[in-house]
C-alpha cells in the first residue's frame, strides 16, 4: 500500500475585500471546504477555470497562505496553523514551480545563485559543495554547467522553466506543487517540459500537485484529478473515471468544451450558458446551479454532499447522484 504523503481536509480560505467610503467590507470565499489526499509518487491535478480557487489551494498547502479552517497533513505532520519560524522544515519538503518563468526568477541573480539559494537557506554546505550540486541539477533538467553563470534574461521561456524546476528539486523535496507550469509556453516547448516532469517523477519518486486549466495536459500527466468550481471540488477520482465516465454536469461540460485537434471528430458539445458567478457572492445551494443544464429545484437551495461515485476513490458532489 503506497503511503499517503499529503492529506488535506475541510480546507477553507476567505479573503477580506477592503470596503470603500460607501461600501462595507466583503468576504471572498476563495476555497470552500476542500479535501483530498495524494499518495507518494503519484500526481494529483486540480483543474478548473479562472477564479475557481485552484491556485489558492496550492498556496495554502505550501503555506504561502494560512488557511482559515481545515487541516493539512504533510508526511505525517499537521502544518495548517504553524508559525513562519516552524515552517522551515516543511519548506524543505514542499517546493513550488510557478507559471510565469519570466517573473519567478530574480533578474539580478546568476542561474547558479538562483538554484543554490535553497541550499544557502536550508543547509550549511560549503560553496564548493553547492556548486557541485548545482552542476548536477543542471544536468538533470537538461541544461549544462556553462549555463550556470548567466542571468535569467539570457534564456528562453522553456529554459527558464527548467531553471525553476532545478531550483525546486535541489532540496530533494517530497512534494512539488506546480502551478500552471506549462501554460506560458509554446506547445513544442510545453511537451519538452511535460516529458521532463514525468522523467523526474520516475527518477526521484516525486509527488506532484499539478494545477492547470488545460484538461489535455492534465490527462497526460495525472493519476488522480479534482475538478474545482467556485472554491469547491465538484468531482474527484482516478483519471480514467473522470475522463471516460464523468458524472458531474460541470465535468461533462468542461470536457466537451475542450477543442480536440482532430478535424474528423464532430461531437455534440455541451455549451454552458452564462459566465462564472463571482466568488464574492456565490449562488445558493449548489454553486453550479446557475449554469447547470440539469438543474433541479433542490439544487437551488441545498448544497449537495460529497458522495461516492463509480469507484471507491471516485467522489461527486451533485444531487443527480441520489
Amino acid at each position: 500500500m503506497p503511503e499517503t504523503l499529503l492529506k488535506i481536509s475541510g480546507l477553507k480560505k476567505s479573503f477580506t475585500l477592503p470596503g470603500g467610503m460607501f461600501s462595507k467590507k466583503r468576504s471572498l470565499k476563495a476555497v470552500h471546504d476542500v479535501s483530498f489526499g495524494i499518495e507518494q509518487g503519484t500526481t494529483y491535478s486540480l483543474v478548473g477555470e479562472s477564479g475557481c480557487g485552484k491556485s489558492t489551494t496550492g498556496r495554502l498547502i505550501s503555506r504561502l497562505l494560512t488557511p482559515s479552517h481545515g487541516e493539512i497533513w504533510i508526511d505525517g505532520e499537521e502544518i495548517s496553523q504553524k508559525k513562519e519560524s516552524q515552517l522551515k522544515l516543511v519548506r524543505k519538503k514542499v517546493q513550488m514551480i510557478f507559471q510565469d518563468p519570466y517573473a519567478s526568477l530574480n533578474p539580478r541573480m546568476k542561474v547558479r545563485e538562483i538554484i543554490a539559494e535553497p541550499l544557502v537557506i536550508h543547509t550549511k554546505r560549503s560553496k564548493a559543495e553547492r556548486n557541485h550540486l548545482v552542476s548536477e541539477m543542471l544536468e538533470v533538467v537538461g541544461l549544462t554547467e556553462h549555463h550556470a553563470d548567466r542571468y535569467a534574461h539570457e534564456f528562453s521561456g522553456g529554459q527558464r522553466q527548467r531553471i525553476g524546476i532545478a531550483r525546486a528539486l535541489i532540496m530533494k523535496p517530497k512534494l512539488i506543487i506546480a502551478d500552471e507550469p506549462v501554460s506560458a509556453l509554446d506547445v513544442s516547448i510545453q511537451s519538452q517540459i511535460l516529458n521532463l516532469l514525468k522523467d523526474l517523477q520516475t527518477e526521484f519518486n516525486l509527488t506532484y500537485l499539478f494545477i492547470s486549466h488545460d484538461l489535455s495536459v492534465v490527462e497526460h500527466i495525472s493519476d488522480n484529478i479534482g475538478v474545482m468550481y467556485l472554491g469547491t471540488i465538484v468531482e474527484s477520482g482516478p483519471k480514467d473515471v473522470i475522463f471516460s465516465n464523468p458524472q458531474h454536469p460541470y465535468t461533462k461540460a468542461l470536457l466537451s468544451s475542450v477543442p480536440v485537434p482532430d478535424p474528423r471528430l464532430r461531437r455534440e458539445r455541451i455549451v454552458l450558458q452564462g459566465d462564472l458567478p463571482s466568488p464574492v457572492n456565490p449562488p445558493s445551494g449548489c454553486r453550479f446551479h446557475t449554469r447547470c443544464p440539469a438543474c433541479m429545484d433542490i439544487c437551488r437551495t441545498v448544497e449537495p454532499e460529497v458522495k461516492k461515485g463509480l469507484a471507491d476513490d471516485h467522489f461527486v458532489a451533485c444531487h443527480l447522484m441520489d
Partner: protein
Amino acid sequence: MEKLLQVNQLETQFTKDKQKLKILRGVSFHINKGEVLGLVGESGCGKSLTSLSIMKLFKGTSGEISGGSISFKGEDLTHKTEREMRKIRGKQMAMIFQEPMTSLNPVMKIGEQLLEPIRLHLALNEKQAKEHVIFILKKVGIPRAEEIVYEFPHQLSGGMRQRIMIAMAMSCNPQLLIADEPTTALDVTIQAQILELMKQLQREEGMSVLLITHDLGVVAEMCDRVAVMYAGRVVEEANVFDLFESPQHPYTKGLIGSVPKIGQRKDKLTSIKGNVPDPGNMPKGCKFAPRCNEAMAICLEEEPHATDLGNGRMCSCWMIEEGRKNVYA
C-alpha cells in the same frame, strides 16, 4: 473557387538603431470567399504581424512592408495610402484581438464604441444607427442589449467583452474577418461559447475568416484550410483534414505530436528539440534545420522553396523538393 485575399511573398521589416530587421520573410497564402483559414505557429513566428500587415496597422512603430503584395478583391493594398486604408478597415475587413479589455476604450460606453464604425462606414441616420447597434448586439447573443449600450467595458465579463468586439467587427458586414487569438484569454467553457458564435456567424454571413491561433484544437474545429508559419514564412499549407492526417513538413509533424490529446494514452509526447530562432540571429539555410531530426546537408546551406503538392497543398522542405527531383530523374 474565388480568391478574396492573396498574399504573395510579403515582407515586413522593422528598423531599430538604423538596422533593418526583417520579420516576415516572404509570406504567401490565399483565402477563398467564404472560407476559414487558420494561421498557426508558435510565438514569434510572425502570425500576428501578418495580420497587422494586411490591415497596414503600423502606426507608432517602425514597421513597414518592404516587399511582396497583398491583393484584396483584386486590388493591391501595399500601395494604398492611410486615407484609402481607413475606408477599407472596419468596412471590408475587420479585426478581433486577443485581449478584449485592452482593445475596448475603457472610458467610452459600449453603445458609443459600437456606433463609431457604423457612423463612419454606413449611410444611416442616428436613429437607424442606434437600431443597428441593438440589432448587432442581439445577433452576437448579448442579453439585455438595450441596457448594455449604456454600460462601460469594465462592467462586463471577458466573454461578454469578446462578444462586443465581435459585434463591432461584424457591424459593417465585412467580407474578411481577421481574428487574432480570439479565445486565448478566455476560459474553456467561455471559449466554447465564442467559437460556437463565430462559426454560426461565419456560416450565416458567408464571410471569410483569417483565424490566427496557436491552439491546434481550435484549428481542427474551426478551419477549412490551414497555413503553418515558422520563422516568418509559411512552411506548409493544406486543407484541415490533410494537415492533421498526413502532415508533410517536419515542423508540422512535431507540432501535432507535441499536443497532448484527450483519450490518447501516450507515455511520452513527441517534442521538438531546441527553441524558436531569434529574428536577429537566423540560422543559414532552412530556419527549422537546427531543430529538425531529418535535416540533411543541403538544409543547413540553402532555404527550400515552396513545392506544390497538388490539391491546394504547399510545403517548403528539402525532403519533398529532393524527393520530387528523384521521381522525375
